[in-house]
C-alpha cells in the first residue's frame, strides 16, 4: 500500500497546529499587531500564513487568552494584541506540557 502524497502534509499541519498557538501566545508577551507579529515569528523561523494567523488571534481573544485595542500608529489605525492574565497562566501551563512532551519524545527517540 502506497501512502498518499497528502498524508505527510496533513500530519505536518496537525503537528504544527498546537505549536503555532503556543508560539503566538509566547510572542504576545509583548504587544504586537497582526503583521508585525507575523514578521517576528517568521524571523524566528516560524512562517505562518496570514489566513491562519489573523483568525487565530481572534479565536484566542474570544477565549479570553488575549486582549486587544485599536490604536493609531504611523498614521494608521491598527489592532494591537497582548496576553491577558488568563493567557499568561495558560502559556505557563502549555509550556510545561510542551517541555514534558519534548522530553518524552527525546527519550523515545
Amino acid at each position, binding site marked *: 500500500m502506497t501512502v498518499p502524497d497528502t498524508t505527510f502534509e496533513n500530519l505536518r499541519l496537525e503537528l504544527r497546529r498546537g505549536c503555532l498557538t503556543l508560539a503566538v501566545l509566547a510572542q504576545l508577551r509583548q504587544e504586537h*499587531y*497582526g503583521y508585525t507579529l507575523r514578521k517576528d515569528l517568521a524571523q524566528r523561523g516560524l512562517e505562518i500564513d*496570514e*489566513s491562519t494567523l*489573523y483568525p487565530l488571534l481572534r479565536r484566542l481573544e474570544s477565549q479570553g487568552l488575549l486582549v486587544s485595542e485599536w490604536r493609531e500608529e504611523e498614521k*494608521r489605525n491598527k*489592532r494591537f494584541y497582548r496576553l491577558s492574565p488568563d493567557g499568561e497562566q495558560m502559556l505557563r501551563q502549555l509550556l510545561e506540557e510542551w517541555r514534558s512532551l519534548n522530553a518524552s519524545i527525546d527519550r523515545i527517540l
Partner: protein
Amino acid sequence: MELIERYLQAVKKYLPWKRQDDILAELRANMESQLEDKEATLGRVLTQGELEDWLRALGSPMMVASRYQPQRSLIGPALFPVYLYVLRIAVLWAIVIYTVVNAVVILFATTGAPSVIDAVLRLPGVLITVAAWVTLTFAAFEFVRERFPEKCPPIDGISGRPWSPSSLPPLEKNEDGFGKPRRYAYAVAEVVFGFIFLVWLLLIPRHPFLLFGPGMVYMTSGPFELSPIWWTFFWWCVAVNVVQLAWRSINLLRGNWQVRSRVEHLVTKACGLIPLGVVLLARDSAYILLRNPAVEGARYGATLDTINKSVHWGLMATCVLVVAQLVWDLGLMLTQTYRKRAAASH
C-alpha cells in the same frame, strides 16, 4: 490599491455579519503594512502582476473569510455515531413497513404486476424522505445542543454524563454461532429479500402465473390438476417463511445479526420438514389428480400412477436428506456443547 479594495470587498461578503467591519478594518491595516514593507524593499510601487500574485498567495476571498467562521457541522462528531445508528434503524423499519403495507395493498388489488413495479419504483423516494427527516431532526438537536447545552438532556458517554462500563450490554452468545460472521448489509438484504419472497408467495393464490409461468396454460387446460394437499403444503411453506423472517427481523433489531444462531438454523430446518411431512401423508400418494377421471381414467391412469409414485419417492428422498442433515447438525451442536462444558469443568 483599487485591487486591494476589490479583494477586501469580496472577503466582506463571506464574513460573519456581526463582526465584518471590525475584521475588515484589521485585515486592511495588516495588508497595507505588508504592502508598504514590500514596496520599501523593492524601492518602487508593485506592478499589477506582482499585486495579483501577492493577493493570489493570500488566498481566495472565500477561503480567507471562511477562517473567521466558527467551525460548524450539521451533526457534530459527538452525535454522529448515534445519528448513523438511528438512520440505519429508521431506514430498515421504513423498508419493512413499506413492504408489508404494499404487500397487503397489492394482495387485495387486482392490478397485479404493475402495482408491484410501481411500489418498487416508489421505494427510493420513501427512503430518501425518511433519511431526510432523521437528518433534519438530528441537525435541529445539534443546533439546540450547541446553543443551549444546559437545556438538553445528557447523553450517556457523550455530553459529560458519567458513563459506567457495567452498563455495557452482555457479551453476544457467539458460542451458538453458525457459519462466518456476516456483514450488516447482508443481514438487512436477507430480511428485505425475505419480505419480497413472502409477498411473491402470497401473490401466488391470486396470480398462479407467478409460479407456473407459461405452464399455467397446461395447468388449466390439460388432463391433470393439482391435489388440494398442495394448498396445505403451500400455506405451511408460508407459515415457515413467516417464522423465519420474524426471527431474522428480531435478530436484526436486537443487533444479533453478526453470527447466525445454530439454534435458529436447526429450528428453520426442522420447520421445513413440516410441509414435506404434510405432503407425504397425502392419502394414496395422490399428488396429481385427473380433471375428469371418468372420461380420461383409461387413457391417463397409468401415467398418473407413474407421476404420483415419482413425486412420492422424490419427496421421500428430499425428506431423508433433510432429516440426515438435521441429525448431523444436531449432533455437531451437542458435541460442541459437551466439549465446552467439559472444558469449563476442568
